[in-house]
């Protein structure tokens, strides 16, 4: 009886994980296909489609665009997120709780709504569709995230550390750069890597806000319109690999517990 329950538990677990990961496994597997269609039977392994991706100028430039947008928008998000978290944690502000709620609110709004809103706003303000516009969109979605991560890690213990620095003669900007930032470094890096992850494979906002130069997810979508081929699998696998690396960095920085 007990053996049966255990067996059932295993079957259930395998089914669940299979349900979650099988699409990814299939995607990666058929990116290694040697023939022209990403359908069974498997004819690989072969790296010919990866080669095709890397020699496709449109895809590589989209990849670089994506990296650029991800790095810059994440830097801006984490900087603004850190400053606002520090402000909320260290100063008594009128309506602090409401303002904190407002700053994290975009987390609950769909990317489609944010993208459309920005499209209308940029149209009205005369900002052309561009990578910059998409980057701004990514800051809108990632700033609340960075804020929430960094704010949650700002304890009262650090208040005295900052006070000590001021007491020893440090000007306010030195307190920020030499004390607050290094002390909060794990949360700051975690915010940065998570922002990178989200920006890296974000589609809707980039789709709405870019035109000629665009990001990798949008370019993949363009590719998919002409039908499935192992090249899309290969580029998708690349996107996935980069995301995995970023998430691992995120987990390492946030979850690594330093001895007090």
């Amino acid at each position, binding site marked *: 009886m007990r053996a049966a329950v255990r067996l059932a538990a295993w079957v259930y677990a395998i089914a669940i994980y299979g349900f979650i990961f099988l699409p990814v496994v299939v995607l990666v597997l058929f990116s290694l296909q040697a023939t022209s269609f990403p359908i069974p039977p498997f004819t690989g392994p072969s790296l010919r489609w990866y080669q095709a991706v890397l020699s496709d100028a449109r895809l590589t430039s989209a990849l670089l665009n994506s990296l650029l947008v991800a790095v810059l928008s994440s830097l801006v998000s984490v900087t603004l997120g850190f400053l606002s978290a520090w402000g909320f944690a260290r100063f008594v502000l009128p309506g602090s709780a409401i303002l904190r709620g407002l700053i994290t609110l975009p987390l609950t709004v769909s990317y489609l709504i944010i993208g459309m809103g920005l499209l209308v706003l940029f149209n009205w303000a005369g900002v052309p569709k561009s990578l910059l516009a998409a980057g701004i969109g990514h800051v809108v979605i990632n700033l609340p995230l960075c804020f929430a991560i960094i704010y949650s890690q700002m304890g009262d*213990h650090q208040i*005295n550390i900052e*006070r*000590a620095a001021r*007491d*020893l*003669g440090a000007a306010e900007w030195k307190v920020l750069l030499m004390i607050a930032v290094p*002390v909060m470094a794990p949360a700051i890096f975690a915010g940065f890597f998570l922002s990178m992850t989200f920006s890296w494979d974000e589609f809707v906002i980039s789709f709405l806000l870019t035109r000629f130069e665009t990001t990798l997810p949008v370019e993949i979508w363009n590719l998919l319109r002409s039908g499935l081929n192992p090249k899309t699998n290969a580029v998708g696998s690349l996107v996935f690999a980069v995301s995995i690396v970023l998430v691992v960095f995120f987990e390492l920085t946030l979850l690594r517990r330093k*001895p007090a």
Partner: protein
Amino acid sequence: MSAPLVDIRSVSHRFGQLAVLKSVSLAIEPGSYTILLGPSGSGKTTLLSILGGFVTPSEGKVFIRGADCTALPPAKRPTTTVFQDYALFPHMSVGGNVGFGLRMQGVDGATRAAKAREALALVGLAAAFDKKPHQLSGGQRQRVALARALVIEPAVLLLDEPLGALDLKLRRQMQDELKAIQKRVGTAFIHVTHDQEEAMALADHCVVMNEGRIEDEGPPERVYARPATRFSATFMGESTILVGTVTEAKNGTVTAMTALGPISLPGVSPADATVALAIRPEHLFFGEAKGNVTLGMAKVGDVVFQGSFKRVLATSTLDPALQFIAKAPASAAIQAGDTIPVSCQAQDIILLAD
């Protein structure tokens, strides 16, 4: 007399509706070790924060070396603080921590390292220069915090319950070291604590605080032997308190009517005033009359052997609300349940206005 190093003039402070300091004035002499002693909520930590520049008082002024520092930020005033939780910079080495204040003053790296090593040697931690704070024990972190605050040669060093986080043995040991370091560097130390033993051991000048006011201040010997108020008689050491009304006061002798009958003692007081008579535990005698003031009979409630003496709690048979707290010799044959006479010497009774 020269001007005091620190001059606090009628400082009041309130947090919202709550008045935590009520017109406090205090002068601190150069090179002195001052202890602010009081229970939590007495305002002692707020007063220290005002001296450090972390809190600007609602009213009053603070002068340090004759200069008005009331609203000066911490970075600009000649004080440094040793925080209760040490507040070491976790990402810097011990040497980096101690050198931080000098770095802010623009001192070059080599001089900074030399001075930091010197300060670490002063606190007995010369070997820890390259370690990180998390590699040190609580007592060692405390020393690093002390070295970090002392290295920039402040006029006043402020210590916020510096020994509070240490265990008892380490606390007594650090206490002796603090005093030795203070004597060596000659900087004025102002130290906040609620531990009266710490206060008596360390202070040149002891300031007893309660509910936002200074109850008493002076050398700890004087504050203990002749406390100015009923609060300081009970907070700085223990006392048995007798409440009475003055019936006669002349020729330097006061006679007060108490629940135990009239008691005469040397002192001056207006007639008909309500007074409190405080008697220190070591001044109470149990057994056949040894003192010239008899205090009736008492039923012994509790005898606690404490090594060199026995701590005795007894209830007066004349007034069940009155508890005698006494120190009896370790050899005294007193047992719980005994009913014995109590007495003391008239000159040992402390006369306090109630």
